[in-house]
């Protein structure tokens, strides 16, 4: 099953400086175990632009669509046999990137 592992970031998070190396090592392990699909980090939510073309004219707005303390900092897409294995990976991922992780399966 494919899962999205979202990195939940917030303004109060203090980096230790070891995150990059730890995430690289985690990614290498994901590839070695065959779970890797894709992963990347995102720039700050201030860089977001919202596009709404549900009406007659497309409306383009600066900024994230929800102002909140917590925001999406990056994500992994992984392919694993079940939630228990995914949970184990998320436990390692959370430690590596020093942030909370949300797991959601993709619609099959």
């Amino acid at each position: 099953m494919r899962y999205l592992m979202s990195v939940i970031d917030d303004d109060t998070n203090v980096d230790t400086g070891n995150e990059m190396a730890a995430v690289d090592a985690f990614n290498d392990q994901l590839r070695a175990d065959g779970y890797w699909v894709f992963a990347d980090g995102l720039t700050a939510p201030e860089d977001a632009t919202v596009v709404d073309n549900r009406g007659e004219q497309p409306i383009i707005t600066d900024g994230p669509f929800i102002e909140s303390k917590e925001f999406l900092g990056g994500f992994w897409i992984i392919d694993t046999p079940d939630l228990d294995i995914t949970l184990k990976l998320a436990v390692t991922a959370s430690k590596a990137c020093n942030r909370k992780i949300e797991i959601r399966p993709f619609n099959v």
Partner: protein
Amino acid sequence: MPSPDAQEAVTHVHRTEWARIVASLTRHFGDLDIAEDAAAEAFATAIERWPADGVPPNPGAWLTTTANRKAIDRIRREQKRLEKHEEAHVIHETDPSPQHGIIEDDRLRLIFTCCHPALAMEARVALTLRMIGGLTVPEIARAFLVQDTTMGQRISRAKAKIRATGIPYRMPTADDLPARHTGVLAVLYLIFNEGYLSTTSDAHPIRTDLSTEAIRLTRLLHDLLPADGETTGLLALMLLTEARRPARITSAGELVTLDEQDRTRWDTTLIAEGHQLVRERLASGASPRRYQILAAINAVHTSAPTIRDTDWSQIVALYDQLTRRDPSPIVALNRAIAIAELDGPHVALAIVENLRDALADYHAYHATRADLLRRLGRPADARIAYDHAIALTTNQAEIATLTRRRDQLVQ
């Protein structure tokens, strides 16, 4: 003609075989929904047919076969389901190798699935009662005083999450097992405690249905994991607590505290069984954890023919042991109650006062403090503490006891 024998047979086999049938269907079809419905349909067929056809020689096997047929019928009807079924099989075929030293049993797998940490606690409780306990949705709804539809949705949502998120139907891996096992015991203890002292204000103060069911489920887990100390400990704790039930409520609906209970009304059979389990754990020589220590405390209480005969130094020693494992303020509060008997209420009150910040919203903190103040001859302070306790209590029988104690204070 309804045959009482056939009905009795259905009831009996429901109690003994439900979990096994649901668990085996779940393994075959990889879907809790199909398993639950097919098992329920098989029992409905038994109720319909056994009075006329007679009870089959092996009722469990008859029900399993019937349920399997019902499940296959349903899958044929719903082609979409079949795809999910095949998919589920793919998932299970990638299972890691079997665990060492753990009995593989379908029911055990099902218990771990129902008590999965990715599910909300209330969903774990509801699923466990439905899938393992075999309680109907209206029965579970009644037990937790919610609408049938609300409980039905809670269980459906939990099953949907299991399916959608790929919660596996298998034993946790060896490194996950201790935490997951503790989680299962927590679900069973929560069910028991809601029965022991209902937190719902308009429910009956003691919910025998829930405590009885929790004991039955814990017995099942104990049968499946006989060497596990904490499962044995939890079963002993439940039995020794349940043994005191006949003495816990007066005919006027007041809760009777341990010191005022008529101990001749305690259930000696349950006490004997609980004591046997505690002795078994002591003989194992293994270092006891939480439930085993709590069971041992209850064994000391139930060994004393009167409150004065209680070996309080033993109880304090056990609380000291528990504090080392679990230094929580609630454990400290219960230890203080024992200290009051051993060293006097003034020593206990000093301990209790230090817990104020942590337990200011906990009714038992104020009730304990009120009792200590009363014993120390400070009725005005005791009255205020009883008022606090009453305001924070939801159980009607407990409120009745606290109110009487407050009203009996000397002015």
